[in-house]
């Protein structure tokens, strides 16, 4: 395996993914600590012009570094990246954290799987919603589809397996839970995740100069709305007059 294992003091390993990408592996788990490490390193790499590097893309415990093979070799990239070895990077968690509050109409036609989730856990639908909306979810990174957050931190009591037969089309705004995760869709897509509600907001709005809402490290909280409120907010979103409630807090 073309792997370039590094010293003990920093457990980052480097793996070639083809001839134009190097993956930096920071560990093997999904955790908030790992997220902070990935974010700090990602912000550092992203703020530097690394010769030959086209793009740097984070995930749970890895950062993919895409390079132009006409301009750089993996050895040159390794060399540059290894400078970050042992470097004290500004801790991303010292910046203020953005909290976003997302309105969701749970159950009914907007959340056809809410009942299934409730039955699976022997809870009432209201109890599921109460548990789901009582906390913040960490957006580990954005990816897969434009603006789609990877939300972690679903309470264990709500962990539900995927559907046996995926739904063919789920509209944008759909809020789903699967294994330990939650997500909201920006584009209509098929999915086998449990659909528990729908938000009237657009997390990917191509009319906006920057169409995507979420950023890596956002704390996301969902709050229940009625069908009437759903329609009201939808109209405001349509008119580009709805603003997602946003707070900036210092987190320790």
């Amino acid at each position, binding site marked *: *395996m*073309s792997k370039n294992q590094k010293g003990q003091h920093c457990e980052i390993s480097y*793996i*070639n*993914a*083809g*001839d*134009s*990408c190097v*993956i930096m592996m920071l560990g*093997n*788990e*999904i955790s908030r600590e790992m997220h902070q490490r990935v974010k700090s390193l*990602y912000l550092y790499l*992203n703020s530097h012009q690394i010769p030959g590097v*086209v*793009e*740097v*893309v*984070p*995930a*749970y*415990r*890895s950062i*993919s570094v*895409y390079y132009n*093979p*006409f301009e750089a*070799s*993996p050895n040159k990239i390794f060399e540059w990246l290894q400078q970050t070895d042992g470097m004290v990077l500004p801790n991303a968690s010292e910046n203020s954290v953005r909290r976003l509050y997302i309105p969701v109409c749970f159950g009914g036609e907007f959340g056809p799987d809410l009942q299934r989730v409730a039955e699976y856990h022997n809870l009432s639908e209201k109890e599921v919603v109460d548990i789901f909306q009582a906390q913040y979810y960490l957006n580990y*990174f*954005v*990816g*897969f*589809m*434009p*603006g*789609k957050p*990877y939300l972690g931190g679903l309470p264990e009591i709500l962990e539900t397996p995927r559907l046996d037969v995926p739904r063919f089309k789920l509209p944008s705004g759909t809020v789903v839970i699967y294994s330990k995760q939650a997500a909201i869709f*920006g*584009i209509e897509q098929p999915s086998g995740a449990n659909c528990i509600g729908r938000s009237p907001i657009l997390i*990917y709005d*191509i009319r906006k100069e920057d169409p*995507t809402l979420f950023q*890596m490290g956002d704390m996301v909280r969902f709050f229940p709305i009625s069908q009437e409120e759903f329609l009201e907010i939808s109209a405001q979103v349509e008119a580009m007059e709805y603003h997602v409630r946003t707070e900036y807090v210092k987190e320790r």
Partner: protein
Amino acid sequence: MYNIIVHDPGLQSTIQDFGRWGYQSKGYSVGGAMDQFALKTANILVGNDPGEACIEMTLKGVEVTFPCRTVIAVTGADMQPILNGKPIEMWASYLVKPGDVLSLGIASVGLRTYLSVKGGFALKSFLGSKSTSLQEKTGSNEGKTLQKGSSIPVSCSNISDDYVPKKLKADLIPAYYYENCKEIRVIEGPFEDYFTQKGIQTFYESEYIVGNDINRVGYRLEGSPIEHKKEAGQMISLSMTTGSIQVPGGGLPIILCVERRTHGGYPVIATVASVDMSKIAQCRAGDKIRFVKISIEEAHRLLQERESLLHNESAMKTVDLVEVLMRLPDMVEDYYIQLYDEFF
């Protein structure tokens, strides 16, 4: 502003350039031309930057009218291009006049064909690229394929009458027909350790057939299933690359192409060398492929070699005057009529 008018949009024709780099961390697919060698060559032939946007056509090409004097080239799979009723060559540039009609047919071998126009298309970029993303509904033509009646603005420059057409040297034109099996060169990993020795052997020793489920997102292959290591467990999602060969639980590989999603969670047994992604782009359902492992150094060497051949002075043959006369009788005729008119 001049517009190219689309009379027949073909089967799936979109505007593509080198793709939308720099936005995967926001979830945007890179996209861009499937066969970047053909795109590059089409642009070089007409004197554009190599990454200028072209029309990418799939299986069946377009019929268009040009609004002004300009230079065009058609590269990739041979769709038997016809200009004003006369066959023209692939991998060569041609001067066209206002009202000239280019019609492309069905590719006999290969799958994708590129039409370049000198000066490129006067289209707005979205996040640094003119590429159409069909899934994200963004980029040129509002994220849709070209339709009957679509118009594509072009920036027409003055082409002098002594313009000398160019064509790619015959030995640089890729062959899209393989009697037996296409060899696709790959670099191992990055997640070979998720597979058993037997699984890895299956991957390199069997022939795979390109399935019916092929598009700009990925190619599903049919053939012998690849065995995963049971103890390896699930992979944690991470960012993928174009050419990643994913192997889901069922064991049949999927080659990720340019319009792939940014992140994925299936282990990647090997990655197609960039130089061979053009071969993948031209594969059709039913084609047979076999994977051959090469080193990353070899992959870079092959890529650089092809690139330097393309940019070499001798890569583009200029077409001599006699050939010009033979290839473009209409143009010459018009030219003399024009002279005649001016003279009298």
